[in-house]
């Protein structure tokens, strides 16, 4: 019985020593002293099993040191990675907006987007300042301690927060801007020039938009296709015209929603009009812009009737 125990003790003690030798190869050199300390205690322990149990604590030293390094690395590289992500997202956001909205981006930046976009760099700069202060303060208070809880966690939180804010902007801004863009402008009349329906058109436009008498006269040398965003198909007493989306493609018109309006100052008539007043091809005005099917949805454009024909 005693012999069996001795054999078992020998085997387990040998296993303990082998285990510690293995740990010694894998442990950080800085921690070697502590492993030696742990090994030196083996002699004071009675029983091979107890020695083996004690030696198994050496494995924990490997894990302890690796965890420590891992935390250092996380602390050191985490903010850098987050900042790189932030920068990439910011550039991506601006680039996608420019690509998607072209020149409109300028207007959007001026009106709404600028304040949002300014928040991000300000926020990032603020995070930097807070981080620097926290690090300095921690270093002052705790010296060169490498404890996990001695390292400030706030900067990482701030970085993650600013990254999240950028992500939200990245994902949400396009949708928000799309929504802004489809909103109709101020009530306007999209119309087709046609002198035959002058009186009807004049009455509608006169009630719809504040124009001088001369402007109304000039503008209402038209046949309305839409008034205040409603198709004339829904207005009683007016004949219907071809489907606007098809008719609009590639023709020139006036973007009423964005202030392009053939007002009296810019309008004129060619001298060869007939007894019924100027015909559509005889109305002269400032150059409009090429329209597309999208304009038909907004119904905020003035379209020369000839173009419709």
């Amino acid at each position: 019985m005693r012999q069996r125990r001795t054999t078992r003790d020998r085997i387990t003690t040998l296993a303990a020593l082998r285990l510690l030798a293995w740990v010694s190869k894998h442990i950080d050199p800085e921690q070697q002293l502590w492993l030696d300390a742990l090994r030196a205690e083996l002699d004071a322990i009675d029983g091979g099993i107890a020695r083996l149990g004690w030696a198994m604590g050496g494995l924990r030293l490997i894990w302890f040191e690796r965890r420590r390094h891992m935390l250092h690395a996380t602390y050191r590289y985490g903010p850098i990675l987050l900042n790189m992500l932030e920068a990439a997202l910011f550039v991506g956001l601006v680039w996608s907006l420019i690509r998607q909205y072209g020149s409109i981006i300028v207007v959007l930046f001026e009106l709404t987007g600028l304040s949002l976009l300014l928040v991000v760099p300000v926020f990032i700069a603020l995070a930097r300042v807070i981080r620097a202060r926290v690090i300095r303060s921690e270093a002052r208070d705790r010296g060169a301690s490498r404890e996990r809880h001695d390292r400030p966690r706030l900067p990482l939180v701030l970085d993650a927060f600013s990254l999240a804010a950028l992500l939200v902007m990245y994902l949400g801004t396009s949708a928000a801007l799309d929504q802004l863009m489809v909103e109709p402008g101020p009530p306007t009349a999209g119309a087709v020039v046609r002198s035959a329906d002058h009186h009807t058109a004049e009455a509608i436009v006169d009630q719809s938009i504040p124009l001088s008498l001369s402007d109304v006269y000039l503008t209402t040398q038209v046949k309305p296709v839409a008034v205040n965003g409603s198709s004339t198909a829904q207005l009683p007493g007016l004949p219907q015209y071809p489907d606007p989306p098809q008719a609009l493609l590639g023709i020139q018109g006036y973007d009423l929603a964005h202030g392009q309006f053939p007002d009296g100052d810019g309008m004129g008539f060619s001298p060869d009009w007939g007894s019924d007043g100027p015909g559509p091809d005889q109305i002269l005005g400032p150059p409009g812009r090429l329209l597309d099917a999208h304009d038909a949805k907004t119904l905020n454009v003035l379209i020369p009737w000839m173009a419709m024909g």
Partner: protein
Amino acid sequence: MTRQPNASPQTIRVLRLLLSEPTAWHYGYEISQQTGLKSGTLYPILIRLADQGWLETRWAEPQRQGRPARHTYRLTQVGARAASGLVAQAQEAHTVEHPGTQGAFG
């Protein structure tokens, strides 16, 4: 919220033991026996305390020839002061949570 350093129950146990005889040198196995902590728990605590300057270490000459030198530990003055505060706090917290008992602090 930042966790207070060295305030874990295991660390408090080690500190209490070291505080019981602040000038004496303690062996690792002895600390383990008296606190009930396994070596895998005890040594990381000792490493942390030493890193923070709370713990003094030295190699003690073997009592019998042919035996290896053993590592021994005791609190530094700074460590003893800080540990006293921590242990007192822990004891107070324990009393509030378990009124009428002294438990591990008895």
